[in-house]
């Protein structure tokens, strides 16, 4: 669907495990790896990346759902609409006129939306891009029949387990870690940078309290709009928060 194809590359990036993967499952359609035509039939597990951005994609995802036993959507685009969902906050016609010479050739929906907005999904694997170990875990879980061991927690938990010194507390930076779904292993805080929220809001994301705290220590409302409106800015909790701080 609409994406940069980067999440598919994560699968190719599993160099060491690719052989074992090939033994454990029969990969029948993988556009980034092979140009073989999509076979007809039914599939045990379908991984889909990208958001629903055009009428054709909407049609296609319904078909994919119908022929897949398990549908796992991967990446920020597929789970929240992705960075291209920034257009949801603006006039999309106007964007098209600015970007394309002949906008009438482009067929595009007004909003870029996650797959789950259109069809039921079995699992949403977050991230921009997704984490390779987590992807293997989702595939393993489906092969052996366990619940994917993807913890439903804040980035802070990974940050603390890793022994990172909190950048909010010790460096006074804004960090979306407390309201963001874990999965990256607290990559940015480990490099002394606040979390950008690539994995999207976690359950119970108390974005309001985080914003109040940041405003209380001198950040501006514009800073809050920027912080919450980035890679997963169209995910409901983040969208709601950024809108609260719009001028």
């Amino acid at each position: 669907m609409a994406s940069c194809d980067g999440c598919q590359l994560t699968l190719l990036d599993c160099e060491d495990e690719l052989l074992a993967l090939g033994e454990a499952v029969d990969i029948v359609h993988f556009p980034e790896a092979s140009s073989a035509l999509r076979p007809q039939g039914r599939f045990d597990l379908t991984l889909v990346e990208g958001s629903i951005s055009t009428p054709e994609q909407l049609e296609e995802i319904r078909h994919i759902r119908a022929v897949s036993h398990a549908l796992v959507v991967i990446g920020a685009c597929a789970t929240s609409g992705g960075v291209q969902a920034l257009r949801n906050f603006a006039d999309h016609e106007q964007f098209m006129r600015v970007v394309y010479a002949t906008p009438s050739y482009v067929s595009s929906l007004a909003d870029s939306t996650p797959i789950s907005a259109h069809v039921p999904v079995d699992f949403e694997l977050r991230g921009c891009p997704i984490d390779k170990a987590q992807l293997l875990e989702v595939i393993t879980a489906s092969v052996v029949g366990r619940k994917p061991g993807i913890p439903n927690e804040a980035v802070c938990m990974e940050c603390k387990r890793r022994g990172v010194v909190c950048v909010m507390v010790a460096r006074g930076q804004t960090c979306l870690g407390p309201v963001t779904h874990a999965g990256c292993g607290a990559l940015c805080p480990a490099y002394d940078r606040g979390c950008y929220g690539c994995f999207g809001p976690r359950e119970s994301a108390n974005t309001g309290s985080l914003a109040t705290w940041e405003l209380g220590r001198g950040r501006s409302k514009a800073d809050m709009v920027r912080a919450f409106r980035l890679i997963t800015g169209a995910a409901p909790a983040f969208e709601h928060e950024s809108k609260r701080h719009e001028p």
Partner: protein
Amino acid sequence: MTPPPAHWLERDELGHLLALIRGDGYRLIGPTVDGAAIIYDEIEGVDELPVGWTDEQAPGRYRLRRRDDDAIFGFAVGPHSWKQRLFPAREPLVQIRRDGDDIRFSAARADPPPTAFIGVRACELAAIELQDRVFVRGPFVDHRYAARREACLIIAVNCVEAGELCFCASMGTGPRVGPGYDLCLTELDGGFVVEAETEAGAALVQRLDARAAADAELTARDAGLDSCRQTMGRELDTEGLPGLLFGNLDHPRWTEVAERCLACGNCTQVCPTCFCFDVKDVSLLANAETARERSWDSCFGQDHSTIHGAVFRPAIADRYRQWLTHKFASWTSQFDASGCVGCGRCIAWCPVGIDVTEELSAIRSQDPKPAIELPRPQVWWPREDDPLVPAPARVLEVQPETPDTVTLVIERTTAVREEPGQFNMLSLPAIGDVPISVSGSGEDFVEHTLRGVGRATKALSELRPGQRLGVRGPFGSRWPIELAKDHPLTLIAGGVGLTPLRSAMQQLAANPDDYPAVRLFYGARSAADILYDTELLAWDSLPSCDVSVTVDQASRRWLGNIGFVTRLLRRKELPLDGRYFICGPEVMMRQVLFLLDEAGVPKSHRFVSIERNMKCAAGFCGRCQYGPYFVCKDGPIFRHDHIDFIFGQPGF
């Protein structure tokens, strides 16, 4: 007893002390400056200590600052604690290897190198002692923790300056270092007062160029400790705190703090006494090797309180209340001490500066309801075997019970005979382990009835005779069937809640002389869902037993009672001196207890079986907490009057 003599160590001699310890083969872990904070890390000598550094702390704020002297230990505690060394954030517990139908489980050993902890503060030593209560002084020993604990040498430091967020004096844990150290240093102008508590510590002093401390030096030490005590940045009134908190479970402050709390879990991760962990099977694709690993968990996460997809603490207010009531109240019932040592970490490292001392005093001062009495702690005699390592066991037989339920008859692997009401942890490689109650047992077999609803139970229910699985247990409390010797006994079961009662029923039915008056009331969803039908008929035919079954949904072939089990109960006599065992979904148990209230049956005559999320079953992982209890060790069978203040309370 006279205290062991204190010595005086010149400042320059500290390097000598560290070198001696290293020379004895210890790895040194101590405070060191890392970018923005003082953390604990491997060090080689004095140069890496934070000489001339201190910290400024406030709620949600920590900054390093240069001191105007060159004090070595002139700072308060930082984001790390010794917990990371004794109870690492992530570690393997069990290695599992599958070889065809064969499964091997082996304990992951810690094999820790001898390690010296340099600069352990009073509150931190108290925190280590508290974690000892969890990991080595409960019903079982965590062997990985115990091995690391034994391999460590503790060089403690008395605090002569208090931090902005410290309140060890209120918690009774400091600033003077309590027992449990090898050597204790007090940093004064020009050097250290050194006290040894163990032989290892005394031997080190012997080898140092240290003279006996002069009286003036001892006076200076005491003055430093006193001034530290007087200048604590925080204070907490702990008087009657546990009962006060449990008496105020619906205090408005919980919702108020939940508006600010991010449920991020940072407070629990930096807290040196928090011990909750999650356990997961880590394996790759169809590989034969699985590592069963644990990693730090927090009651602020949703998974912590989830079973079968139901979340027991959905709201942030539930989770904050769990954290605070556990730390400052439940701990006292569970481990005979407060779970807080007053280190202030949770205040500094809360990204939005929530201050536990402020929250607690708000509850105390804003119209509190009266305190309640909490249960007294139990004393345990730890068993020596490793409770986390399953034994492989063969499936002897699989009996289908209903379309989605089977009984696995498994070969017995332990000499310990299961009691009715107890449970085993059943496990499959790469899938994980789940608690399943014992539904029956004999000389050389154990029976478990399970419904294949979750992924693990589904995989277990698909096992075939001859295949293997892992079993560990038995765990937990039992039904007190001996009460039926002197009292009429009524067993009330709903759905699969019959399974733990079945093993009780088997013993009761087999000994009619001892148990002359037993009734079983059982409600199933439909006729097709009735478990153990031939056994039910057989029990009913005995003069000592009376069995009544009802189904929720009528069907053409069912000629018996229709309606919930409570409807059946309404038509029966409920003797006041009778004893009642109840097991089923919590809503059903609530309704039954309500009926018994109406009938006037005392709460102390009723026993219920509680189900919560369990990972370790040995009292280590904290997942199964139920107010002041652990379901895995204090339960699953509880007397109603012992839990009535939390039973049915949302959030517990």
